[in-house]
């Protein structure tokens, strides 16, 4: 059995709905769930092809943790009480309406016209920055643009998907407070347990303990740098998973990200982009023996570049992850050599000769 999430053009909203539906199916059905990007839609497919409740007595609960900090970022424009009510409403819609209609009556979520409806729920700006006013159309002298209204099932799925699979992080050290939102876009991913997707797609916010353990994302100055580091770490997670499973089953096409900055009233969108993951995936496929070393080196560049005075290293690594061309590669190695020669980088952090040789294979001339 398969369901289609038709794409609307709002990238993060579309992917979040796909994640949301996959998590719902994975948590209540016995079958493995597969998400596949078909270009015009996401297919969410039950691998065993039949609906079979994991819990026949229907004591099944929606896998929502009310205390998850991500909710405060998804509903960043709302107050605490309004946010709680939204989460409660999401639970109610998903359990009482969606599961009955989608799973029991075999209702397909496939009509594009049904996504944007009058009188629906407002798409939160913290979920997809396209929802903010003034982004979709010009607001001239009068500020009249309406909220982007979404049909309730799609709204609930998108909120669930972003809260469970997305990540938010504060960036910048001084000045205006900024937040980056990240969401990996699935290309072909299979889930046996819904919780395992979070291990792949989510990052904890950096703390002193994570910085000491050399895990997670570093506290970077720029949003693009955070996204590029996330791409490298996602590739490493996929590599580990592929090594455990014996083959590369899970693929992601890109990581979509956006920045929000605080104003006197409510957060506003700053910029957004995507980091393509094709080169990193090619490295896993083409050079499985060296991939770990390559990703460790790239991640170290971000980690070292997050320290004060070394940001040029992180920026060079970011440029390389985005472009994979000769100029960006040269800039990265030149800065790295300079830091090494200055004893700013420990010798043990150097990549080995074979790993470097493999990196060069993927550089575009």
């Amino acid at each position, binding site marked *: 059995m398969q369901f289609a999430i038709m794409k609307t053009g709002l990238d993060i909203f579309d992917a979040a709905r796909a994640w949301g539906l996959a998590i719902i199916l994975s948590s209540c059905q016995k079958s493995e769930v597969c998400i596949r990007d078909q270009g015009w839609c996401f297919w969410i497919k039950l691998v065993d092809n039949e609906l079979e409740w994991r819990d026949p007595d229907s004591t099944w609960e929606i896998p929502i943790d009310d205390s998850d900090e991500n909710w405060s970022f998804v509903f960043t424009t709302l107050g605490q009480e309004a946010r709680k009510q939204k989460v409660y409403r999401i639970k109610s819609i998903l359990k009482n309406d969606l599961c009955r209609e989608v799973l029991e009556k075999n209702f397909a979520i496939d009509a594009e016209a049904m996504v944007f409806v009058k009188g629906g729920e407002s798409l939160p700006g913290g979920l997809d920055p396209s929802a903010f006013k003034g982004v979709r159309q010009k607001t001239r002298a009068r500020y009249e643009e309406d909220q982007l209204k979404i049909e309730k099932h799609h709204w609930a799925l998108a909120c669930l998907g972003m809260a469970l699979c997305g990540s938010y992080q504060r960036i910048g050290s001084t000045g205006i407070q900024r937040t980056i939102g990240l969401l990996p876009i699935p290309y072909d991913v299979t889930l046996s347990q819904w919780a395992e997707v979070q291990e792949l797609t989510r990052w904890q916010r950096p703390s002193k303990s994570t910085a000491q353990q050399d895990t997670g994302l570093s506290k970077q100055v720029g949003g693009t740098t955070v996204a590029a580091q996330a791409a490298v770490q996602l590739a490493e997670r996929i590599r580990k998973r592929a090594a455990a499973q014996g083959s590369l089953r899970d693929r992601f096409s890109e990581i979509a990200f956006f920045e929000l900055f605080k104003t006197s009233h409510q957060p506003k969108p700053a910029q957004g982009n995507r980091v393509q993951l094709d080169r990193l995936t090619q490295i896993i496929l083409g050079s499985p023996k060296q991939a770990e070393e390559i990703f460790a080196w790239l991640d170290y560049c971000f980690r070292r570049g997050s320290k004060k005075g070394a940001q040029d290293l992180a920026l060079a690594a970011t440029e390389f992850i985005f472009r994979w061309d*000769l100029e960006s590669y040269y800039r990265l190695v030149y800065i790295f050599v*300079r830091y090494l*020669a200055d004893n*700013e980088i420990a010798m*043990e952090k150097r990549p080995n000769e074979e790993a*470097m*040789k493999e990196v060069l294979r993927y550089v*575009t001339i």
Partner: protein
Amino acid sequence: MSQSNSLHDVYAHPAIREFGRSLRLALWRQKDFSSLVELDGAERPDEFAEALKRFLRRFDALARRQNLHRPTQQRLEEVTGLIDLHGVKIVRAAIISHALVASTKQGLKDEVPGELVEEESNGSAS
């Protein structure tokens, strides 16, 4: 623009490897930043060849003092041939790539002075 094996092939060339290794030693042992800057600044093939010659002259003293292998004239000619074939940017990127890698675990001991290794193990560099 396409993924090309030329950079990969140039990197694997013995002459490039030899020059890269020499640059690595020159940087760690005598802090030869001048050569790094000159190689970075060279745009034309003749400028790059000149920067390589100057680097060799500087490296010569270190090589004689510490009994290190020095790239030969033949290797220099091979590198010049690669520059004519692939251009300065590719050859330069390949040489500097060799300058940052750790060839083997034993290589680390050979390349890094004892004091520096001790400093690093104490966590002076992160």
